[in-house]
């Protein structure tokens, strides 16, 4: 942990070149991800992991640059005005891959400015968002008001080009993703948590509220990624069942585990969430005491099928770790099937299993599979779009 902190300090000094080079450099990890992951199939508690995490934009030294408010607003309006043209003309948006639309990108641009410009957030937001179609122009004294910014005007342009031309996800640029009520550090090499998964957390918390006894056993998050589900469970379990649930989080990728470890630490949950390196149940296999010990298991394993991988949105296909997306040869269900099969060994009687799947086909398939086995109350739950996505079940008592 100390190592991570020391690294953080270094980034502060290194500044912009480094942010961009870390962002760029990080992408190399994605390519090497699977090989690294194959080697990382070993059990170890992820305590003192050595990792270079890119510093989130909002934590970069704010004294890096001074800009006039008028110039900043003009730069913002210029970038914003160019979005529509970029969408229709840039080769990176030629493919029909459900790319973000103009409105999405406008919001993202405002996030980029919000995280970079050192103004009272409410004031900045009013400035950036209140104008309807474009930013409110500033007049008089405000025009020349000098404010601090973490990026220079040129850097805004550079970074925004990374976003538009290379389709680098905004969350990787900001180094932060907002999920549920959490602000999680993310970067190349770790899956950006999706809004759908928030529903899985709600389902798990609902199960805890329904049967408070489950909270007296530890819970398990398989393939934790940023640590989102594990941290969410630890933080909100007390509200749901009256006692703080201990969570064991397991992550195979070294890169992702570094983010999980950082996020767990940021939320002060070192005691509540324990992070293990390994594939699915691997870190637990050796010890007998883990058998029938967990009150619940949650997981958002990779579930994208072979055919779907090619057609993915560029932000996902080019930049997010394949190992966190591709679900394997059995119709994308390698991980899901493994978890369904192994979970009963680790769950207490009546224990909860909650899984995110790729949609109706996987969910119903797994559902019918489980109904024939050691499971009770197998249900397929929809996400907020109404897509049957989650599989929840209890082990037989």
């Amino acid at each position, binding site marked *: 942990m100390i190592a991570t902190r020391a690294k953080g300090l270094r980034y502060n000094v290194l500044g912009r070149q480094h942010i961009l080079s870390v962002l760029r450099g990080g992408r190399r990890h994605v390519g090497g991800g699977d090989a690294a992951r194959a080697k990382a199939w070993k059990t170890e508690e992820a305590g003192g992991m050595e990792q270079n995490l890119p510093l989130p934009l909002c934590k970069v030294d704010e004294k890096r640059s001074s800009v006039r408010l008028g110039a900043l607003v003009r730069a913002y309006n210029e970038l914003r005005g160019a979005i529509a043209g970029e969408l229709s003309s840039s080769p990176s948006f030629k493919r029909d891959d*459900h790319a*973000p*639309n103009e409105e*999405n990108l406008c*919001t*993202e641009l405002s*996030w980029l400015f919000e995280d970079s410009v050192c103004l009272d957030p*409410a004031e900045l*937001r*009013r400035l950036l*968002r*209140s104008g*309807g*179609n474009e930013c409110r122009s500033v007049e008089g004294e405000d025009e020349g008001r000098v404010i601090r910014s973490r990026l220079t005007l040129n850097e805004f342009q550079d970074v925004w080009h990374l976003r538009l031309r290379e389709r680098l*996800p*905004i*969350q990787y640029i900001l180094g932060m993703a*907002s*999920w*549920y*009520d*959490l602000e999680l550090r993310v970067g190349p090499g770790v*899956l*950006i948590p*999706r*809004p*759908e998964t*928030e529903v899985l957390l709600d389902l798990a918390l609902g199960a805890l509220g329904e049967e408070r006894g489950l909270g007296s056993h530890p819970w398990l998050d398989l393939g934790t990624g940023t640590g989102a589900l594990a941290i969410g469970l630890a*933080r*909100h379990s*007390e*509200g749901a069942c009256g006692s*703080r649930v201990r969570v064991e989080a397991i992550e195979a990728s070294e890169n992702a585990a570094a983010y999980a470890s950082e996020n767990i630490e940021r*939320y*002060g949950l070192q005691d509540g969430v324990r992070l293990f390196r390994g594939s699915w149940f691997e870190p637990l296999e050796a010890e007998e005491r883990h058998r029938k010990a967990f009150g619940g298991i949650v997981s*958002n394993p*990779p*579930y*994208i099928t072979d055919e*779907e991988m090619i057609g*993915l*949105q560029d*932000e*996902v296909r080019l930049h*997010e770790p394949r190992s*966190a*997306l591709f679900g394997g040869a059995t119709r994308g269900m390698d991980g899901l099937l493994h978890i369904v099969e192994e979970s009963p060994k680790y769950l207490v009687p009546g224990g909860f299993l909650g899984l*995110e799947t*790729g*949609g109706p086909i996987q969910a119903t398939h797994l559902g019918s599979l489980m109904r024939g086995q050691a499971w009770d109350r197998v249900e397929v739950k929809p*996400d*907020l*779009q109404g*897509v049957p*996505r989650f599989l929840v079940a209890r082990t037989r008592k």
Partner: protein
Amino acid sequence: MRTRTTRALLAHLSRGLGAGSRAARSCPHPCPHPCHCARTLVPTKKPGGTAWTTRRTATRGLAAAAGQQQGNGESLLGRVESLAGLHRELERVRPKVDSCLALLDREEAEAALSAKEEEAASPDLWEGSSSHSQAAGGKENAAQLLRDITALKQRVALASDLEKLLGDITAAADLLDLESEGGGGSEGVEAMLLEEAAFALGEVQSLIDRWEVEKLLEGRFDRYAACLSINAGAGGTDAQDWAQILQRMYTRWAERRGFKATLLEVSPGEEAGIKSCSMQIEGDFAFGFLCGEKGTHRLVRQSPFNAKAARQTSFAAVDVVPVIEDLDLVKEVQVDDKELEVTTMRSGGKGGQNVNKIESAVRIKHLPTGITVRCSEERSQGMNRAKALAILKSKLVVLEQEKRDQEMSEIRGEVVVADFGQQIRNYVFHPYKLIKDLRTGVETSGVDVVLDGDLDDFQDAFLNYRAAAS
């Protein structure tokens, strides 16, 4: 002797006494009301207008609200142009200040303040507030305590301001008495004293006016922050532009008052303007001041979007609800998850891992009442949902309250005055300029001033109207 003084003073005044020095003068006391203080400090740009004009313009609305027949600055100055006038004004103001001071009860407020401050200094207060999960209760108490302390501090400050100002005026009057009895003294000094006294009198008047208005803000939800939403009416671009003009007006209004306005949601119009927006406005009595804005605002103007510039009528609906922080009050409202229809704005596609789009906007519909709340302000779906739910609950609390009010007035056999959802105010830009409130009858031709956020006259009048109706 007195005639000489008066003549000299009049001559002095006609040369524009103190125009420069007054304008540059800073507020003479630590005023508890930042907005009103800020306004008094704006140097006037009108060539003939002295700082007096500025000052009295600033508090004009408050005077009207308090039912004062107080004129503008010149007439006040006129009344205090002589020592006799000063005495008259002093005698008029003194009983008001006295009764105000009696009500403020500075000693009691100070005792309460020190007790509360001691409580706030205790380390237990913030216990748990730094940990992430469950400090809600502690935090709530702490926030309430801080609100109490602020209120008490303002009370004490107001009382001491009034005491000091009254003391200043009395001292000036005494000095002038001595001067005139002694027969000597320089005209310059007398003029200055008189001017000082008149200035302080104006100050006292505006403090009392303001305080009286705040006394009107005794509605159950008045002290809360407000969530104000604007929806453009039918009529396309013109109506959407009108909605944006209103959005700007309320944003400016909040800025002028020193309130914090946070935009919660905005959906831009196709060509110009906005289809809808909602904002949270935080500040003392934000809801109280804004509650009278609820209703339909009608605009008549030459359309800027029409080649012929035809006369066009546009509508926008403004809704205002308090943002209720008290857990108790919101807890009273039971919302069953089954009664809620939650829709997210995630647009098609496969969703899940397949898609990375920052679509986190949430819409919640309360099925039994049909109330719908949208929130896209936060960056995550969970946060947007929590915020939308909080606003929804506030709306339900208000609905409940309105229902009770209606029952009460039915019992009393009175007409319900809160004719919400109907036109409340007309804004005519063409063929003449006039803004008229249909409930209170208040009207002004100062269209630009109002659209720049000076709603004081309208709001004060509404508060009086509300007080009279209840």
